[in-house]
């Protein structure tokens, strides 16, 4: 029961910190000290682990990973960022990755969602239909 509450608390804290940005990071240390005061080492470790996991997920929600076989033009990247930024309060962090296995085309990941429009993906779909 206490572990579940700690997990929820860690998730809420991670969301607040990411939403607050740099100021949130500055306020994180005193907040964590206050929360972890009087706890055992094992509890602290478990809480920090849950917080790290939640914070990573929160960061991933705001991170747009763009994979391509060759370097994309700035125009294409800007177009994608503009499309994915619509309706969002915070700006997206863009990460570009090169992946020759895609052959051509683009694969985009935002949080847990993956959009794959690569030639390799289309070939895999074709193979699945043949099977």
């Amino acid at each position, binding site marked *: 029961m206490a572990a579940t509450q700690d997990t929820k608390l860690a998730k809420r804290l991670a969301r607040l910190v990411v939403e607050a940005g740099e100021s949130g990071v500055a306020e994180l240390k005193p907040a964590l000290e206050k929360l972890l005061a009087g706890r055992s080492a094992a509890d602290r470790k478990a809480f920090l682990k849950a917080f790290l996991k939640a914070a990573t997920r929160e960061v991933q929600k705001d991170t747009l990973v763009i994979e*391509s*076989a*060759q370097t*994309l*033009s700035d125009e*294409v990247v800007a*177009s*994608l960022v503009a*499309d*994915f930024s619509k309706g969002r309060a915070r700006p997206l962090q863009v990460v570009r990755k090169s992946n*020759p296995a895609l*052959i*051509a*085309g*683009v694969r*985009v990941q935002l949080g847990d969602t993956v*959009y794959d*429009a*690569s*030639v*390799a993906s289309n*070939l*895999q779909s*074709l*193979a*699945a239909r*043949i*099977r």
Partner: protein
Amino acid sequence: MLDSFILLAAATAETAAEPGFFDKIGLGGFGLDGKLILAQMVNFVVVAFLLWRFAFKPVMATLDERQNKIAEGLQFAEEAKAQLAETEKRQAEVLREANTKAQEILHEARDKARELEDRLKAETSTQIEEMRKRAEESNELERQKMLTEVRQEIARLVVMTSGKVLQRELGDEEKARLDKAAAAEISQLN
């Protein structure tokens, strides 16, 4: 018969013993002696009685006994013959019944054997049919499995070959065009 014979002899003897009897009846001239004749008659009667009592009667009794035994033997023989005939008749009847029973058992055994043969044939036929069906199903499954494997292998080869060909043959311009089209597609999905 013997008793009447003895009475007659006694009466004759009494009559003959009287003096001058033969003279009275006109037979005195033949020299007959009445006393002698009487004595002979008495002797005859005594001898006849003794013979009757000690010889003829036992012989007759023995003959009667033997005759009875022969009659009994014949009767026994007749009864034995009748019994034998009855026994033979019964034996023949028993044999006939046994023969009939044996025929019935034989017929029944033949019927059962035929029935068993038919049943075994039917069961064997069913089993063969089931085995054939199972074999066909197994062959069909095997064929489907092989087809699936072939399809998968072909798909893998197609993807691998196509990927290699595309990687080698696609130029930068074409790749850029594809990147742009993919970005537009993703934007539409989003």
